[in-house]
């Protein structure tokens, strides 16, 4: 029988890859769950992309750090971008979910969500829309998201995210949804048909990476701590002598044994 061995350390080693690949299966099921979520009129409107791998996740994390340190510098939201970038790195995989109808093909249900009127005028009057058909080629926008968006479609988008999270919950995979991840992914060109995107991070680790977050998380986190140990250890060992001729550790061990033999309380029982 071939053996599949799993161990989360060291990260990205083959044994850890076995673990990550199992999470990847769960994330694929989460993507499917998003597609089966309730929606108004049974209309297909959700696209999904799974980002998996060190380099791919690092790219999203860096874009989040760029946004956090520029457009939202020194704000609580800026910090969220920075902290959640760490979570992207710590995740086994990232599920990107987007809605490709909320901007270009609204539900036209006259529900009032977009503008508080019993019609869709708020949304349509802010778009180029000859004959009520929104021009999809108008993509330029200055804000993170090109609003206004259709409320019914966004409600459906929420259902999709909820179903993906529910599937993760059933599979005992830690997962949470993030606006910050989605915004960065859109700017990187993922889910190019979608006007709004949310990143669902997923991991199967001993410690849920999305909760119990310490302050300054962007500089104090497991990755940085491990790196700190490596940095200091290499410096500290340089004070050592020539282990081939003398070893202070050996001398200390012998001294401990001598002391133990002379201890009257010690009857030799282990």
């Amino acid at each position, binding site marked *: 029988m071939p053996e599949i061995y799993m161990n989360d350390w060291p990260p990205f080693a083959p044994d850890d890859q076995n673990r990550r690949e199992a999470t990847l299966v769960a994330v694929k099921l989460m993507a499917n769950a998003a597609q089966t*979520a*309730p929606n*108004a009129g049974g209309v297909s409107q959700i696209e999904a992309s799974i980002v998996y791998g060190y380099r791919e996740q690092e790219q999203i994390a860096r874009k989040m750090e760029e946004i956090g340190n520029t457009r939202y510098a020194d*704000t*609580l*939201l800026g910090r969220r971008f920075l902290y959640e970038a760490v979570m992207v790195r710590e995740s086994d995989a990232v599920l990107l979910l987007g809605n490709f109808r909320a901007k270009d093909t609204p539900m036209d*249900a*006259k*529900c*009032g*969500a*977009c*503008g*508080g*009127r*019993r019609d869709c005028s*708020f*949304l349509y009057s*802010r778009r180029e829309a000859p004959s009520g058909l929104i021009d999809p080629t108008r993509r330029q*926008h*200055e*804000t*993170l*998201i*090109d*609003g*206004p*968006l259709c*409320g019914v479609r*966004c*409600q*459906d*988008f*929420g*259902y*999709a*995210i*909820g*179903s993906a*999270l*529910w599937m993760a919950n059933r599979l005992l995979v830690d*997962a*949470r*949804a*993030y*606006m910050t991840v989605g*915004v960065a992914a859109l700017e990187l060109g993922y889910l190019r048909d979608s006007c*709004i995107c*949310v990143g669902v991070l997923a991991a199967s680790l001993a410690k849920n990476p999305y909760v119990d977050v310490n302050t300054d998380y962007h500089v104090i986190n497991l990755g940085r701590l491990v790196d700190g140990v490596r940095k200091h250890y290499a410096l500290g060992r340089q004070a050592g002598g020539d282990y081939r001729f003398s070893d202070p550790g050996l001398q200390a061990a012998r001294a401990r044994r001598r002391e133990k033999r002379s201890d009257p309380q010690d009857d030799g029982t282990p």
Partner: protein
Amino acid sequence: MPVYDANLLAHEKLFDIAVFCAQSALKAPQITGKVELKMQILTGEDLNPVLEALTVLGRIDMFNFLSFATWQSAAAQGRMPVLLLIGADVRQSDLNYNCGACGFPTCAAFNQYSRSVKPPPYIMVKGPVCIWRLIDYAGACDWACAAAWQYNITNRIEIATGWAAREVGYLDECDVVHGLPLGPCTDLHWYSRDAVTAMMEYDIWLGRMHQNYPTLFGTFPGEGRPDLKIRPDWWTQPAEVEIKQIPLEQFEATYASVESDLKAIRERVKGLAAGQGKPGSGKGEKVL
């Protein structure tokens, strides 16, 4: 030892499922972490005004009437579902994301606009809405549905029932309310609806198809007269699509009647509530 009627118990315990669904909605992970859900459970006779409101709203939006017919079919079988109402406030943003999803460059500008707009009576959603708050609200609704699904209880998340319930006074402070009917305990009730099957005769079906998908029935348009095939011997009586403006004033009387009828139902519910302590106290033990 007593022997229990499991069919009867299955329906009686739908109330417990509604509670599980509410617990699930409250547990749903949120992106903003700031959406506070407001929920109520309606059963038995308390549902009557909601069903009545569905017929009234059905005059302006047909899907309300479809929902009513589905409720009524369950009632006729003596297997009334339990209704979980889920509402939230989404009309203001305290997020400060300034993301633009609502159409404004900042949350402050959105809030200013929101304060300036008074939602008209009997509007489905009291917009404008903060998109991220709405997404979290929807995620919670989804977890309620998923919990029902997990317990194998047929259900359907509906704006119709939530809207009707809000119009007669339940969760009326919420900007958006959805209803989650739970049960009856059967395979399908809220999908492949037998109530609708009975209403939809072949000619009505076909008429809707012609109206919704006219190109499907179109003939060769090269002669400059795009005929529609609306009968088997279509060449004998070709039809065509006529586009005409809808005179909105003809609906004014309908809108006025909807407003006054909803108001009357609302007053009645208020009156019942005054007699029983608070609205929705049909069993004398519910909380509000």
